[in-house]
């Protein structure tokens, strides 16, 4: 029987890796994939607790998060396509048009 906190360590490890990816990589697609990783880490938590309490609510929540991830990936990749078409680049630190 695997103790619950081991799932949390796994989740923490994936989360941290995802955060590092989001914060340091320049390629926008990698950043998006890192976000997927973070969401996945959250799912692990939810399912682990769901199993611990013998309750499926956590899993339902995970399904919503997957739905959310799908929507986010679709819109995010659409934005990347449109941006690439206009600026010929995928580098996040060249997307500085939000500046004052």
């Amino acid at each position, binding site marked *: 029987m695997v103790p619950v906190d081991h799932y949390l360590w796994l989740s923490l490890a994936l989360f941290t890796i995802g*955060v590092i990816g*989001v*914060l*340091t990589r320049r390629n926008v697609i990698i*950043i998006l994939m890192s976000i997927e990783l973070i969401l996945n880490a959250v799912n692990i938590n939810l399912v682990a607790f769901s199993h611990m309490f013998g309750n499926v609510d956590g899993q339902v929540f995970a399904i919503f998060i997957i739905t959310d991830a799908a929507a986010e990936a679709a819109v995010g990749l659409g934005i990347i396509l449109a941006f690439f078409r206009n600026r010929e680049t995928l580098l*996040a*630190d060249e*997307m*500085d*048009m*939000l*500046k*004052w």
Partner: protein
Amino acid sequence: MSPQPYFLDHIWLIPMFPLVTAAVMLFYGRRLSNQIVSWLCSGSVFISFIYSVGAFFQIVARPSGERIFTKILFEWIPAGTYHLLDGRIAKFVADWGFQIDPLSCVMVLVVTGVGFLIHVYSTGYMAHEGGYYRFFGYLNLFMFSMLMLVLANNLLLLFVGWEGVGTCSYLLIGFYFHKKSASDAGKKAFIVNRIGDAGFLLGIFLTSALLGTIRFVEIGPALTAGGFAIGDPRITAIALLFFVGATGKSAQIPLYVWLPDAMEGPTPVSALIHAATMVTAGVYMVTRTNAIYQLSPKAMGVVALVGAITALFAASMGVVQNDIKKVLAYSTVSQLGYMFLACGVGAFTAGIFHLMTHAFFKGLLFLAAGSVIHAVSGEQDMRKMGALSKKIPVTYWTMLIAALAIAGIFPFAGFISKDLILGKAYEKDALLWAIGYFTAGMTAFYMFRLIFMTFHGTSRVDHEVEHHIHESPKSMLVPLVILAALSFVGGWISWPEIFGGNSHFIHFLSSVVAVPHEARIEPVKGPGSEHGEIFLMILSEGLVILGILFAWFLYVKRTDLPQKIANSFGGFYKLVYNKYYVDQLYDALFVNRAKDLGLALGAFDRNVIDGLGVNGAGWLTRSISKVSMWWDTWIVDGSVRLGARIVWIFSYPIRLIQDGLVQSYMLLIVIGLIGFFGYYFYMARHAIH
């Protein structure tokens, strides 16, 4: 009400025929051929003439006490009631009304009859001129205005016609508007007439304010009702104001100066407007308002004196003129003086009679002069004419008849009318008679000077013109012949009683002179007997024949003498030749003063109004706006920019964070999370302890 006689009921149509054709000419004339224009314009005047003749016979058919007929079309100015000067209340009435009585009957017949002949003449005279339709349009407009003037039943409507003829006169004098002298002459005529018109208008106002009516038929009763005594200064004021208007329109001293210049217009215009009809409007008006004049012996005296002096003065200028039309122009002024002399001595009917005969022979003289000018290719200087009698015989004989008529040779029309006036003048005052008598001699002299210089002696015509000399076309000659006949027999309708006549004309008109002046003014009887009258006639005939002989002697027999006489009277000749320098005097006294006033006002406008007012306001506005702009730039804008600068300075650290990079923002989120957990640990530790 029994049906009125047709022509009397339709007198208002008489002015309308020329008005319609005038409108057609001025709006559509350009598209019509000359022939159609001639037929339309002459035809409309002829129809007016037919109506006038019809109205004349229907007036004559009435008993002599009821020979006045008024036709009111509609009320023109419904102005309501007002207070008279003496406090009475009167209703202001100004109708579009027409009045026909013996006086207007005579005027209408003269205007339409002579007018028609001159129209026919013009179709020949103007045949080769530009603006044919324009000329006839103006001419018909003039006919309309003149007929309105003589048919009006009140002063205001008369004034409409009065101004209308003035306008047409202006338009026709300036017909050759491309010539500066012609357009200047038109302006001069208009402006000089305005002075007179102002007086006339004031007279109308005063009449309205004093008598409470401006209808001719009501003026006499109103004078009686108002209880005005003979010599009332208010009545004298009205009469003199009217006479100011008459001096303007009828070219009397001091406002005669426009008429000689008006000869710049085409010759038929000179004949119709400046000899036969328009210039006599003043005489007509004085006669029309004779009820007022008869109450004012002073005004009558002024009229008579001005008339007599004008007659002499103008005749003296006519003696030395070399331009054939100028001679006739001064002659017209002189003859108009005769008419006013007649009015002034109370012989209004004699004045109108002379007006009529003068319309015949002066119209004829102008038309014949036009024929002469036509023959010598536009030359008007008599020094370049001579010996034309054989080449243009019809013109010569008709003009000779006219000259005999104006000179007053028995039994031509001029003799009868002029001697009637002189006789009346003698009854009144011997001095007036003397002036008129002397003027008659001068008239004979300058008239035959014109005849001899033009038709007799040796030819002084330019050679290239010489072989072009030709008699005028039929359309011009027929009116000449008809007018010549009228000049001969025209006076016989009032054949003097001493020659077995019955003075029909004078009796016909006498009903117009409403108040017999003998009843109100004590007549000053001179040698009024029949012998005295015949004696006066023989005296004047003698002087006239002397004048003719003198002219023959000077201009046919001894053609070198005039120059010698002129030289020996150097200064005086020069004075007369230059028309007594009246034009120069008026220029110096009035025209240039008016110009100076204009210049002064212009300078005032430029310097004070523009300089001080407009430019000053502009400068003030600009200065204020400069201050305002400084305030706006440095204070208003400055405070705005200062605020912006302050915000900019304080925002400096925040701008460092706002670099627009998504990952920086995410890093901030992480920092926030760390802070959140740090706070959580801090709180947890304190909660435990």
